[in-house]
């Protein structure tokens, strides 16, 4: 409940409309590109660049206002609640992909192999002789793959890297609260470095999968779920690392204080969220 004497109400906002304009142009361009129209690429680039510049403009305005002391405690609470609900929406997005993985492994693939008295009976006739074992590229034998992704090589190392980065970002937070700027900056440098290292190792793993293991996005349901789940996670790690880089840059500039550091907290929550998603990925995609 509000207990403030005066409210914070920004009057005009030019950035949101321009951000939306850039985003819409980017997506329209992407759609045109998929449809193999010549308009696609230029629209996509123009839209993407517009979007990035406008987001940067909007966020720097927020940063200037925040450092200028415009926001009161109520605004800080609004921002924090907003971030939590945003992360909840991301949780549901990943839940859909995990649900897909579980559905394929527990229902649709066994049914294709003729299991069960319901759907299994008809699929047995369609795909005679298909034995349902995970991982699989499906009964159509369109694109096979030679081997599935193991858990104890690079993925295990990546788990260690992400878990450590979760620790370093917390260490940086402790530094911020204790007003120890050096600890804050060092902690953030370590986190960002570990984050990008993770992305680089993921890229190496993808390269290996495509060139040596014959495992691609088109390798049936196993390749599909593997690349889409780890791919969207990788995108989120990249985004999180970029956000943390901005936080690092602002920390070097002397931003944030013990009382006023919403962006730091939001970035840290986001980072812990991608961390938890990775643990689930490691268990259900790589290991089991």
């Amino acid at each position, binding site marked *: 409940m*509000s207990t403030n*004497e005066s409210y914070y109400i920004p009057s005009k*906002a030019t950035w949101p409309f321009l951000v939306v304009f850039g985003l819409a142009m980017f997506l329209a361009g992407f759609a045109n590109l998929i449809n193999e129209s010549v308009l696609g690429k230029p629209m996509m680039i123009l839209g993407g660049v517009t979007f990035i510049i406008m987001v940067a403009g909007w966020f720097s305005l927020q940063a200037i206002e925040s450092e200028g002391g*415009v926001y009161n405690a109520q605004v800080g609470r609004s921002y924090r*609640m907003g971030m939590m609900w945003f992360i909840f929406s991301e949780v549901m997005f990943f839940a859909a992909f995990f649900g897909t993985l579980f559905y394929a492994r527990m229902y649709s693939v066994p049914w294709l192999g003729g299991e069960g008295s319901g759907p299994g009976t008809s699929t047995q006739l369609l795909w005679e002789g298909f034995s349902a074992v995970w991982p699989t590229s499906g009964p159509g034998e369109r694109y096979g793959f030679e081997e599935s992704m193991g858990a104890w090589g690079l993925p295990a190392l990546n788990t260690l890297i992400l878990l450590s980065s979760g620790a370093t970002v917390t260490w940086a937070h402790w530094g911020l609260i204790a007003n120890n700027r050096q600890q804050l900056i060092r902690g953030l440098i370590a986190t960002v470095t570990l984050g990008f290292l993770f992305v680089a190792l993921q890229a190496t793993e993808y390269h290996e999968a495509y060139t040596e293991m014959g495992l691609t996005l088109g390798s049936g349901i*196993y390749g599909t779920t593997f690349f889409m789940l780890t791919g969207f996670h990788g995108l989120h790690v990249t985004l999180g690392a970029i956000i943390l880089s901005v936080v690092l840059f602002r920390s070097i500039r002397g931003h944030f204080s013990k009382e006023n550091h919403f962006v730091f907290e939001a970035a840290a929550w986001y980072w812990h969220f991608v961390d938890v998603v990775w643990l689930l990925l490691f268990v259900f995609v790589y290991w089991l």
Partner: protein
Amino acid sequence: MTAAATTHDEYHDHGPAKGFMRWIVTTNHKDIGTLYLVFALVMFFVGGIMAMVIRMELFEPGMQFVDPQFFNSMTTMHALVMVFGAVMPAFAGLANWMIPMMIGAPDMALPRLNNMSFWVLVFAVLLLASTLFMEGGAPAAGWTLYPPLVLQGGNNLPFAVFSVHLLGVSSILASINIIVTILNMRAPGMTMMKMPLFCWTWLITAFLLIAVLPVFAAAVTMLLTDAHFGTSFFDAAGGGDPVLYQHLFWFFGHPEVYIIVLPAFGVVSTVIPTFSRKPLFGYSSMVYATASIAFLSMIVWAHHQFTVGMPLAGELYFMYATMLIAVPTGVKVLNWTATMWKGSLTFETPMLFAVAFVVLFTFGGFTGVMLSLAPADFQYHDSYFVVAHFHYTLVVGGTFPVFAAVYYWLPKWTGHMYNEKLGQLHFWLTLFSFNLTFLVQHFLGLAGMPRRIPDYAIQFADFNMISSIGAFILGASQLLFLYIVVQTIRGGEKATDEVWEDAAKHGLEWTLPSPPPYHTFATAPEIK
């Protein structure tokens, strides 16, 4: 702090920007509410024209005006435009206008994000509408976008998918804003259980939106990668399953119907007490019933797919879970009835729409119970009975309460009373023609007429003609609504601050002037 002092005025200015730019840069909840409502009204007519095309084609058997592909585009686009372009934005507009005034807040919690939510919506609908003009036409696989049919849509698929993404962004951002506003911006003394029920229903709706829209976004992303990037989510040859899409879609799609209808419950729970001159009966049970409906709506989705060949245990579970929803819904209907019981009732236009809602929505609920019976559903599935059922729940459940809300609050927004006689004429025309259009569709469905077809067997001719005539009257009657709204905005009898007798007992908004100043509750009101 000097920097803050010099920019102080920028954050506390008192009027809107000049000219057209006002609407592009605005962060004011009333402006954005107006934008949403006007946009919804425009889309209501766009979707309505599509419905007219459908009913024209079905006026008599045989092919008359459009080719089957375009007919299917019309059924698909009519649904998408009405759901995402008209009804949802209308309720978002009502939320923007009313929630801050109802809880004594100066504005929404995140005003810039609020601006973004609206404009994302506009671009999303533009992206969708652009498919009407491209080679191969608009999506024609039904609003559910089932694979494999939708994957054969050609050029429209990526546009439809990205449009859904943007619609999702818009609704999620708006929902975050509504939740944060309600949880963080209430005036001192405005406890959760003192809030108007409209705020409660929107709070729960916003939660549903954030929970299910990302799943829909993920599902359409899978459609896109299946069509263009070689994945096998919905392809049995690759180990996937087209039925998986249906599960993902309806995990979103079933809560979606409650996303439309819960804010409507809130409106009806606001209107009925005012015109019964009594407080709402069973306020807390209304809150719990709303929360129960929201929870149940997330675990019943597969009753839309009884015929796809689920295991028997699944059919039974989804059948019984679905029937449970009748319990909290019954609580609501009985509470509305009890609110009217022994009240001093008057029947102005908002009340007429609200009462019609209670009666007809209950009717739609009963056909819903019929459809929830798995063995019986095998007969009704994909027939006009389903079409009739969901128009009784969504047109009555979505549009009637929006009409009620507009007539109820329009005097507050504009400072002018609407023309009561014309309002009542609009109501009776709408009520009559709605039933003429959709009641007979129950019989068509039970007699075996399938949905989503441009032509039909000769024995369905009479009822289809009646339905089409009803639809034309229904469509034309809405021009009267447009006329009434425009007339009220431009002038008319001056409305008092309370507008309705003793309305100040029913909500903070009635303590404000009509029309309210650009910024309201800049200092928080004291709630006793």
